[in-house]
């Protein structure tokens, strides 16, 4: 059985899913790609919007979609450093 993902890893998986979909993605895709329940995904999306890591785009043709902000791109760049820090200081 795989170990429970940390918040850092879940956020990374969501942002990575958005990045792989050319930085624009529908909520259902986020749910599948990041392996989250609907409830959990809603909670994470709300938090990521508040933290300005993603932004919501309301396109009448595509419905509700999400894209990465500059801060979100920076998060992905910094992810390995953050994981390294947390690993070394036992913050899991």
């Amino acid at each position, binding site marked *: 059985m795989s170990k429970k993902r*940390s*918040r*850092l890893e879940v*956020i990374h998986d969501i942002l990575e899913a958005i990045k792989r979909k050319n930085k624009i993605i529908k909520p259902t895709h986020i749910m599948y790609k990041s392996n989250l329940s609907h409830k959990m995904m809603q909670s994470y999306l709300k*938090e990521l919007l508040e*933290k300005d*890591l993603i932004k919501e785009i309301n396109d009448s043709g595509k419905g509700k979609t999400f894209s990465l902000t500059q801060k979100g791109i920076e*998060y992905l760049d*910094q992810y*390995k*450093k*953050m994981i*390294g*820090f*947390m*690993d*070394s*200081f*036992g*913050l*899991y």
Partner: protein
Amino acid sequence: MVHFNPLPSWILNYTLFSEIAFAIITFAVCLYSFKIYKLSGEKKSQLFGFAFLFISINYFLQSFLTLAALFKLEQNICSLMKIQDLQMLTLYGIYSHLFFFIIGLITLVYMTLNIKSIKTYILILAISIVSILFSSNKIYIYYVLASILLIYISFYYLMNYTKNKQIKTLLVLIAFLFLLFGNIHFIFSINHQVYYLIGHFLEFIAYLLILLNLFLVSRK
């Protein structure tokens, strides 16, 4: 670090340099932890950041007092703080050191316990602070208590290393072991300057290792 007897100026110079270095290193660790907390919301990062913030405040205060001792500024500080007695200033300095360092270590221990209970945290804190305040020899009790906490933290990092065998985890484990050995040396330093110097040297190596780890992590 705590010292009762007047120390030679070269020791004060060395102490001042090392305390400023410790304050900066621990503050850098604190800032990095808060940065991770801000991005991820990981509670452990926040607690770790607070632990290092308290430790950093302790070293900033200590370096300020060492600076005052080095440049014989105690009288000026006393009049500025409206303190009559010079010994009171030393006492305030010692208590602030004990207070912030112990809070820092307890916050670190609380983080490793993986529990969400502010009551537990306050209880551990209250027991520790009260046992120091009401003991006849506060400094000894403080060092013994800090050593116990550091033994526990070192054990946690030993477990962390066995789970995740990397250079970074090994560096952190060795750093906390050096902090523990340094702290044990400080127990004997109250009457012996040699132990004081050894304790400081061990502490210096510990923080250098933490700095090295921070460098390795952030250069990726």
